[in-house]
Structure formats: structure tokens, C-alpha cells
């Protein structure tokens, strides 16, 4: 072995190592967020949820708030070529760039009404309910509700609607769903998992703590879904002294209050000695039953997984053998398959499973996400299925370097997330409306002391449009 070559290699490595300038202080804060709050990606990646439940499609994306310009929101159709037949095999992407179309218009919401940080939305007819959190200083936050009765055209803010009964002033709401006209939201109040229920379109809400946490433990409900058979499932986690465990709650009381039971945690969710499990999302399978997604932490490997249940009581865990080291950052549950987004440090990949999550196949090979007139560094950040069409949301860098929020749509789809914004970020939620309209809910100024809700409106593509021509 040549010493001279070795010296050259060593010199090169040391020289090239200066290419990166680690941001240690910021990184530690992000690690802290993840260790304590369970966030999964810290610096460049944010979680994303794609969730379609009970006829109302909901998705979330996070983009850079500091550069978000509502009047520049664009819709791009990349002409994605969908997988053929039902094999789930990947097919080629498109060589044609997306067509940028106008169509999304911002809805003005006055500053006082918009105050807060929306996290989820659901629509029942023209009634739209958005839930979120108002941050008050370093240690206090409280849930807030926005509602609209005219499909998002006008909004009212209900800062006291979600009672917490918690004197600590620390409460958050993470998800909302609607079924049979009953809105249910989940989160926590003072570290106790809580469900809020509204029978009047989000005006008034009943507060119910979810059972199962031991004394002194923190429990958090992160997602909720209601099935047509009257069962409702909430998922989340419990923070125990020896680690975090996934948590599942079930109510079979239909539209009535009460009936919540804890469906256990680690007994059927962790099968490793030192495992931890966090459940981030639950959805209803169109043919009945529930699918949850999350990840398990065993040793130094992160294991993405889905959980499947017919009745909400007995759950089976499915770990895709080819998902080692990855997370599932968004899952859309369909009749015969799961469409998921897995994210790593370089980007996102969409995969499809037809065996309830035991194995996954890559879905599509490529997408050109940039408009024909330029742009760079596209970032897909959210996925939602509405009426057979997938919508991805995210952003790209304009020629001037600013990030522009964007929505992509295609017939069979995937989504991704990617961002390197140091502090500000915007969540964008897509909600289907019965008249063919679509609402996007965003956050402006997240990470700053003042956050506000942003709203855009658009129209779904009509049948026979680009979606059906892919």
C-alpha cells in the first residue's frame, strides 16, 4: 500500500471535512425536541401526515413561513405516471415538467382572528373546523378552535372552546376528525391525553380525559379516527420513566360521549428488549378496521411500522422488512393497499404495501416538481387523497432564492418533506369541501412568538382533467 497515496487520502479527507460547518447549538436544541417531544427529524426534515378518514381528507405539510407568500401559492401538475394495474410495481416518472396553474387564492383572515398555530382541520359539509394551539410564553400554551360555516370564506376564533381543566396552562391539540357530524379533537391537557367532542359544528366542546396513564406519567394523544361502525380510535404515546410506549384508546360508544378504554401499550407494540414505540397517526380502512402508523426504536435502529386492527382492540404490528432505518412519515390507507412516504436524510420515497405493511415496494421513479419557468430545490411536504386524486404540498426555491409554497397534484401519488429552515415554518393542511373546493390551512411565523393561520381556497380538478389523463 502506498504511503504517499495514504497521505493524499488523509489530506483530502481533512480538507474536505471543512466543507461542512456543523451548527452544534441549533442541533442540540433539535435533538432535545426529539428526545423530549418525540419529534422524529430535527434539522432538515419535519414530520408529515397524510390521512384520509370518513370521507374527509386531511393532510399536513410544513414549509418555510418566513418566506411564504400566499399570493404566490401555485399548483403544479407534474403529470406523474402512476403504477400500472394492481401490481404495485414502480413505473417510470415523467420527463415533462409540471404545468404551473393558477387557481389558489388566499382568503383574508384578520390578524386577531388568525392568531394561533393551526395543527389540523376537518370539514363537514360547509362547516370547517380547524384546531390548533396558542403559544403563550415559554411554558404556556392552550388550544384554540377556528370554525367556518361558509366553506372557509369567513372565520371565527374560539379561544376558550376547548376546556382543559388544567391549571398548569399547558395544553395542546394535534388532530381533529369528523364523523356523522360529530367533531372530535385530541391532544393533551397538562400532560394528560384528552379528547374533545363537539356535537354542534365546533361551537361547544366536551372534554374527556383518556385513561391508562399511571400516576406521574405524561400521556399524549396525537391522532384520532372514527369508523362507520361507531368505533373511534385515538393513538399516541405515554412517557414513562423507562421510556416511551405507544398508546391506543378505543371508544365504541358511537356518537355518544364516554366509553373510552385504554387498549394497552407495550404488550403488543414492542417486541424488543429496549424498544420504544410512538404512534403518530391512525386512519380508518375503507373496508373496516383501523391502521396506525409509527415507529419502534430498538437498540440503535429505527423501525417504521404500521399497526392493523379490525375492531380497535386486537392489534397486529407490521414491520416492512425493507424499511430498516427509515420512518413512515405519512400513510394513506386505501382499500387494498397502503401508500406511504418514507423519509431519509436526502429526500423522500413513496412506497406501496399490499400486505398490510409487511413488505413495501417503491412507488414511481421520478417527479419533476419545478415549474417550467424555473426554480430549484423542490420540497414536497404533505400528502392527501381527495376523490381519487393525491395532493402534495411543499415548496421550492424561486430564482430569487426565496421559498415559494406550492401544491402538486397527480392521480396516483406520493409526497415528501424537506426543509432546512432554521426556525420559521408553515404547516399547510388540505381539506376537501363538498362542492369540489379545496382549502389549504397554513401557519405563518411558526417558531416565532406570534403565529397566525393562513387560508387559501382552490378547486379540485374536474373529472377528465389532467388527473385522469396521467
Amino acid at each position, binding site marked *: 500500500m502506498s504511503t504517499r497515496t495514504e497521505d493524499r487520502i488523509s489530506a483530502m479527507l481533512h480538507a474536505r471535512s471543512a466543507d461542512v460547518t456543523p451548527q452544534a447549538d441549533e442541533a442540540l436544541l433539535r435533538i*432535545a425536541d426529539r428526545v423530549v417531544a418525540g419529534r422524529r427529524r430535527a434539522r432538515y426534515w419535519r*414530520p408529515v401526515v397524510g390521512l384520509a378518514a370518513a370521507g374527509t381528507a386531511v393532510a399536513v405539510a410544513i414549509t418555510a413561513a418566513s418566506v411564504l407568500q400566499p399570493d404566490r401559492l401555485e399548483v403544479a401538475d407534474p403529470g406523474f405516471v402512476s403504477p400500472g394495474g394492481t401490481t404495485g410495481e414502480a413505473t417510470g416518472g415523467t420527463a415533462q415538467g409540471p404545468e404551473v396553474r393558477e387557481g389558489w387564492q388566499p382568503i383574508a383572515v384578520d390578524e386577531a382572528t388568525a392568531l394561533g398555530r393551526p395543527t389540523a382541520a376537518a370539514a363537514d359539509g360547509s362547516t370547517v373546523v380547524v384546531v390548533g394551539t396558542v403559544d403563550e410564553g415559554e411554558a404556556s400554551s392552550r388550544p384554540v378552535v377556528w370554525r367556518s360555516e361558509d366553506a372557509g370564506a369567513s372565520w371565527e376564533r374560539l379561544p376558550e372552546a376547548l376546556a382543559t381543566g388544567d391549571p398548569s396552562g399547558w395544553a395542546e391539540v394535534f388532530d381533529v376528525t369528523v364523523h356523522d357530524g360529530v367533531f372530535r379533537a385530541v391532544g393533551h391537557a397538562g400532560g394528560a391525553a384528552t379528547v374533545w367532542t363537539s356535537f354542534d359544528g365546533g361551537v361547544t366542546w366536551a372534554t374527556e380525559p383518556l385513561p391508562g396513564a399511571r400516576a406521574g406519567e405524561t400521556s399524549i394523544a396525537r391522532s384520532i379516527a372514527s369508523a362507520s361502525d361507531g368505533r373511534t380510535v385515538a393513538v399516541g404515546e405515554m412517557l414513562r420513566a423507562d421510556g416511551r410506549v405507544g398508546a391506543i384508546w378505543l371508544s365504541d360508544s358511537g356518537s355518544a360521549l364516554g366509553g373510552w378504554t385504554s387498549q394497552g401499550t407495550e404488550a403488543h407494540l414492542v417486541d424488543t428488549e429496549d424498544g420504544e414505540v410512538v404512534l403518530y397517526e391512525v386512519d380508518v380502512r375503507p373496508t373496516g378496521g383501523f391502521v396506525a402508523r409509527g415507529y419502534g426504536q430498538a437498540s440503535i435502529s429505527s423501525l417504521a411500522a404500521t399497526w392493523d386492527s379490525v375492531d380497535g382492540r386486537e392489534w397486529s404490528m407490521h414491520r416492512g422488512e425493507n424499511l430498516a432505518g427509515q420512518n413512515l412519515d405519512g400513510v394513506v390507507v386505501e382499500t387494498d393497499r397502503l401508500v406511504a412516504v418514507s423519509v431519509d436524510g436526502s429526500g423522500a420515497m413513496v412506497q406501496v404495501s399490499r400486505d398490510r405493511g409487511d413488505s413495501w415496494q417503491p412507488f414511481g421513479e*421520478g417527479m419533476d416538481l419545478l415549474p417550467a419557468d424555473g426554480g430549484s430545490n423542490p420540497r414536497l411536504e404533505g400528502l392527501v387523497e381527495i376523490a381519487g386524486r393525491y395532493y402534495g404540498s411543499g415548496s421550492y426555491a424561486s430564482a430569487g432564492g426565496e421559498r415559494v409554497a406550492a401544491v402538486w397534484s397527480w392521480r396516483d401519488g406520493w409526497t415528501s418533506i424537506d426543509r432546512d429552515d432554521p426556525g420559521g415554518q408553515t404547516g399547510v393542511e388540505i381539506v376537501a369541501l363538498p362542492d369540489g373546493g379545496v382549502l389549504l390551512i397554513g401557519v405563518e411565523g411558526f417558531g416565532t412568538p406570534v403565529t397566525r393561520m393562513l387560508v387559501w381556497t382552490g378547486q379540485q380538478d374536474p373529472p377528465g382533467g389532467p388527473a385522469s389523463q396521467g
Partner: protein
Amino acid sequence: MVEGGDGPPTTGTTTLPTLIGNHVGTHEQARVGASTTADQWPPGYLRLYHDRYDAMVRVAYLMTGSDLASEDLVQDAFVKVHRAWRRIDDPPAYLRQAVVNECRSWHRTRLRRRDKVDQHAHDLAVDAIPATQVHDELWDRLGTLSQKRREVVVLRFYEDLPLAEIAEVLGTKVGTVKSLLHRAVKQLEQDLRDDTTPEVGR
């Protein structure tokens, strides 16, 4: 639904800024100050972080070639170190192994993706590198090595680890490390020789 929770799921009282002092700016304190408690940081964890974070990011960069991914991967590794802290005998070694594993996962995913998004990201990354660096031949050659050979090269010639320790990190035998290293250096030598050999007959 925005996932992951954006608030402070803890009931402790001692905040992160108290622990890391001047390493946190005012804005960051306001952002997450209440969200992390002293009992979340085992003794020695922060020391390990401050001693090794930068170095591990550079190792991840050398193993992946992606400055964007490197910090992310190392953060992943530190989260895993935290989770396993109680049973770790040698935190620096465990951290290094976690970083290597994260880099391997990153490579596996990239190999499977090979899509336009990936290519686009690569193009962007190349665009961001100064022209003088783009033409760093040896660096380019490093990218042609197999992942295992690249790992060995980085651990040996950047981390300056003895072969036995490299073997431990990679979970293999010393003889295998020797073989990988020998072949890697030979490959790099050969590549460079090919590039510098004058063409005949022109």
C-alpha cells in the same frame, strides 16, 4: 394534523438553556426553553455532544458526501445514544457506530431511490460546491468506492482509528478491514494512475 407535537411534553422545571448555557441563543431559548428538562440529559451526554458533534458531522459528510444529510444523520445518532445511554459502556464508540449505521441506512435508501428527485438533489449539491472543489479528483474517486470501503477509508484516514477499532465499529474482523482498506487504497491509486497516464498515439 401536524405531527410530533410542537409543545413541551414535560413536567420538569430545569430547562435546557440552563444546562447548555451560552450555547443557546435568546431566540432558541424562547423557542424550546421550557421543553427540555435536566433529567432528560444524563451525566456526560452533553460533554459527549460538545466533544464529538462536529467531528461526527464531518465523518458523516465524508461517508455520505452530503452536507445536508450529515447533520441530520448525526442528530439521529445522538437521539439513539440518548435512548440507549444507560446501557452504553463506551459512549464515543457507540456514537461512532450509530453514525456509521445511519450513514449506511442513508446509502441504502439512496440506492433504492435513484429517482429524479435524488438526481436533482445531487445536482443542487454539486452546484453549491465551489468549482475548485468539484474538480477534486480524489474526492470524486472516494465517491466511487463501495460503501464498506468508504467507511474503512474514512475511519482509518480521517478518524485515525486502529484497524481493530474499525473492525469493532463495523462489526467485522480485522482481516476483513485490512482487506477492505487495501483494496480501497489500490482502487484509488489505480484511478488516479489511469487519469494521469498519457494517452498514446495522439
